[in-house]
């Protein structure tokens, strides 16, 4: 009801071979991604992989060294940020410290000389939506982190822009608030229907919120896919180890006696996909055991490769013990050791070999 008028239909964003270079450092390297209209896309990757740079290039705050940025089908590469029709939430919130909450939220509307009545109705709606009605007269310095976060959100959504960019907006909040805000941002995006590009280095955040996760590594695109696909079919060993806690176990193929003929591949199995199985394909010795309550996490070694398994608490496992492990055929991931590419065509072959 409140959001009747507060809605904006998203616009698609396209990056075509976008690069950004500073002297020697290549922050973003020929990155191409498609962000569908109205979708929630998370840019995910380790620190320094170029997420912020990519977002800032979309926003027009950073110039592009090469390539093209398209918004709604139009080339905006050379346009200043004020002409790109988007909003942004900064990691530090970037609230204007000398302006009240209300003034902060309507800053953009005032710049665009929107008339007063329209401005006030919008402000009221946004304030109600975000639970800021009581705080409108305060200065940002008198707000808690979560409230400041909300003000920044309010400033971003009041303009009803088709695109909203966020750079690690939750990293300054505590775990509980983070969880709440995660849900709030996601539902806000779904209600209002704008296109969201959300930078995070937290895989849980990306997986739980996004429609599409763009995984980056050292300025390059590693994989762009839906969260489920990213987990189930990681395109590279990097993606395999970045998504999921604890990360996927990777073995050189020759760690298994039965596969010593195929040394150029890496095999991956998630810790939670392995289970105890007498005369299973993996016979390992247990190094250490971590008790997690619901289950245990065992550090094991096979042929000098250490890996982890998640096991039920029902059977006692102690350090020094030898155990035999198995996994379902489709839990196996095969990567080319040279190119790092995923080789789905070899999964069944290796699976049968291992089990034979």
């Amino acid at each position, binding site marked *: 009801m409140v959001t009747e008028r507060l809605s904006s239909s998203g616009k698609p964003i396209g990056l075509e071979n976008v690069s950004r270079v500073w002297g020697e450092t290549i922050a973003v390297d020929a990155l191409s991604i498609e962000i569908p209209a109205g979708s929630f896309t998370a840019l995910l990757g380790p620190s320094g992989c170029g997420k912020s740079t990519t977002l800032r290039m979309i926003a027009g*705050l950073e110039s592009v060294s090469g390539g093209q940025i398209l918004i709604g089908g139009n080339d905006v590469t050379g346009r*200043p940020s*004020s002409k790109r029709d988007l*909003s942004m939430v900064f990691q530090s919130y970037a609230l204007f410290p000398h302006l009240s909450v209300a003034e902060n939220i309507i800053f953009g509307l005032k710049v665009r000389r929107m008339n007063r009545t329209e401005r006030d109705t919008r402000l009221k709606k946004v304030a109600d939506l975000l639970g800021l009605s009581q705080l409108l007269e305060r200065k940002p310095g008198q707000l808690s982190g979560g409230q400041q976060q909300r003000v920044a959100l309010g400033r971003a959504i009041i303009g009803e822009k088709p695109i909203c960019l966020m750079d690690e907006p939750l990293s300054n909040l505590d775990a509980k608030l983070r969880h709440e805000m995660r849900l709030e941002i996601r539902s806000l995006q779904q209600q209002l229907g704008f296109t969201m590009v959300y930078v995070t280095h937290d895989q849980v955040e990306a997986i739980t919120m996004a429609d599409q996760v763009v995984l980056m590594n050292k300025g390059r695109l590693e994989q762009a896919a839906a969260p489920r696909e990213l987990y189930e079919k990681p395109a590279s060993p990097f993606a395999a180890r970045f998504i999921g806690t604890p990360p996927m176990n990777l073995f050189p193929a020759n760690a298994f006696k039965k596969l010593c003929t195929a040394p150029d591949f890496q095999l991956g199995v998630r810790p939670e996909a392995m289970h105890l199985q007498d005369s299973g394909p993996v016979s390992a010795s247990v190094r250490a055991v971590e008790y997690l309550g619901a289950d245990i996490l065992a550090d094991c070694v096979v042929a000098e490769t250490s890996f982890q398994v998640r096991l039920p608490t029902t059977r006692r496992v102690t350090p020094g013990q030898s155990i035999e492990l198995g996994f379902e055929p489709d839990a196996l991931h095969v990567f080319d050791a040279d190119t790092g590419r995923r080789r789905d065509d070899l999964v069944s072959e290796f699976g049968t070999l291992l089990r034979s």
Partner: protein
Amino acid sequence: MKMRALKLKRDWIHGWLLLLPALVFLFAFTHIPAITTLINSFFSTPRGRRSAKFIGLENYDRMVNDPVFWKVLWNNLWFAIGTIPASVGLAIVMALWVNEKLMGRGFVRMAYFTPTVLPLIAVANIWLFFYTPGFGLFDQITGFLFGWPASNYLGNPDTALNAIIVVTVWKEAGFFMIFYLAALQAIPVSLKEAAQIEGAGRWTIFWRITFPLLMPTTLFVCVNAVINSFRLVDHIFILTDGGPDNASALLLFYIYEVAFRFWETAYGATLTVALLALLSLLAIGQFFFFDRKVHYK
């Protein structure tokens, strides 16, 4: 209980002992002279064997009826109006410019700061040359461009004070720029970026974001500028010596003349009291004026 009280007392004594050196200097060189000045202003000037005697408000009466006093006060007002807004405005513009990413930024910063580093006496000599009738830089330029005749900027009662104002603005702007530069660098870039994203242009960003955030600095700089406008006299000695006909004399210069050229120390003290009262009023007024407009972090 008793131990606590004893310890408290010892702390108290320690505290005062630590403050003592600073207090001695503060009183010896600031408060005692100020009070002596105030007392002297109620006495006559001692001459030879005649010692000073109490004459009440006679010195003040003389001051109010002294046309030169009103003239230098008026000059000083004009000097303040001429120097403060111009030097503060110029300082902001230079700071904004130097804060941008431009080539040779360090060099430009240094160049702007040079007038502040140079001793005023040297500066005044340079400007003396600029203002020289006929050969001076200004006359050469105006003569070359517009064919104007030689003019004696410093010797003409109509232009002498303005000529000094120009030198002062040139001297002060670089100094104030440093404060603005420091303040500008303390403003997070993300604020500017956030405003840009919201569609604000340079002009809007300056007036709605940067300038309000610079307010504490502006207050500080303005207080300094006001005090300086009453405090600076050295360049007057070199450039005009207060002349012609007191056209470029300022209050403090007049005080110097009265006290140390004519040796009328009591009247000098009276003028000093007037100056101090004026300065305190201005400082208090400024704080009240700015208080509601300044956002402190």
